[in-house]
């Protein structure tokens, strides 16, 4: 457990050094008649890199549409 904590700390430090702290939610759909649904997220401060990462990580289907939304732009309306 100690080793895992250390690894996570190192990874966190490396992310901090390269400023990869911004989270992007990834939405996609396989057919036009389907709604977009959230398929995951990526971390990148640069929007172009976020697009590259989303395309390469979530490439399990031939999506007809994929969009990314920065988490910090989401406004909570109801929170219980």
């Amino acid at each position, binding site marked *: 457990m100690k080793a895992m904590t250390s690894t996570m700390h190192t990874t966190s430090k490396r*992310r901090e050094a390269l400023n990869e702290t911004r989270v992007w939610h990834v939405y996609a759909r396989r057919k036009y008649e389907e709604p977009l649904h959230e398929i995951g997220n990526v971390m990148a401060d640069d929007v*172009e*890199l976020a697009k590259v990462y989303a395309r390469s990580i979530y490439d399990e289907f031939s999506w007809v549409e994929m969009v990314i939304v920065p988490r910090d732009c989401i406004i909570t309306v109801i929170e219980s």
Partner: protein
Amino acid sequence: MPGTPVDNAALFAVLSSLADNKQFIGRRYAYWCNGAPALEAAVAAAAMTQDELGHARTLYPLLEDFSQARADPSQVEPVTRTLHYHLAFLDHDFRGWSDFVATNFLLDNALTTFFEAAQDSSYEPLRQRARKIVQEERIHAMHAEGWVRRLAKAGGAVRSTLVASLNRLWDETLCWFGPDDDANMQRLYREGIIDAMPSELRSRYLQKIMPTLSSLEIDVPVTFDLVTKHWEPGQPLPWNEWDAIARRVKQGS
């Protein structure tokens, strides 16, 4: 080897260089599929590795159609090929992630500049592949620019390591287009296989990469002509070290 073989030594040589560079870029990228600074970058590296090896795999079979391959058929297969027409920079493993970024930004962009010039090629097999490769390379270019920006803006040792990687690859990449009197490139231009001569290709390439480097204040040996509004090489390229056949810097240079 069906049909009449193509007899074009110049095209055979340039295709060999393109295939070898793509193959070796893929091999070097592969090492970084689990070594990139972040998980997202590692997955992207894996995807780009597949793309580069895929590009090589579509180019090598073209060599089989040339009469120049008859002398030594083993040279058209990446597994049996003993000639190495890739840049000397790719001879060794990358020293770090910055070499990955520099290769993607400088070398892969240079090869894409060539493929862009071949999108209306008179040689149909290249024309087809060039259009597909140019399309796929858009994602690689986004990755390259994003990482150059990121490493440069990190400052300190991260930035200086990136600059060192760019500098080590700079001359050889600019040389790859060939000198203005490059016989192979001249023939490709004359026969409508590409739409520009080496100096024009080099110029197109610089206009593509320099806005990013300039905005980040990364010093490279170029000058900006205020009249033509074009970036040009700022110092003579090392043609005395250039191997025109292998399209790479000579061993030991």
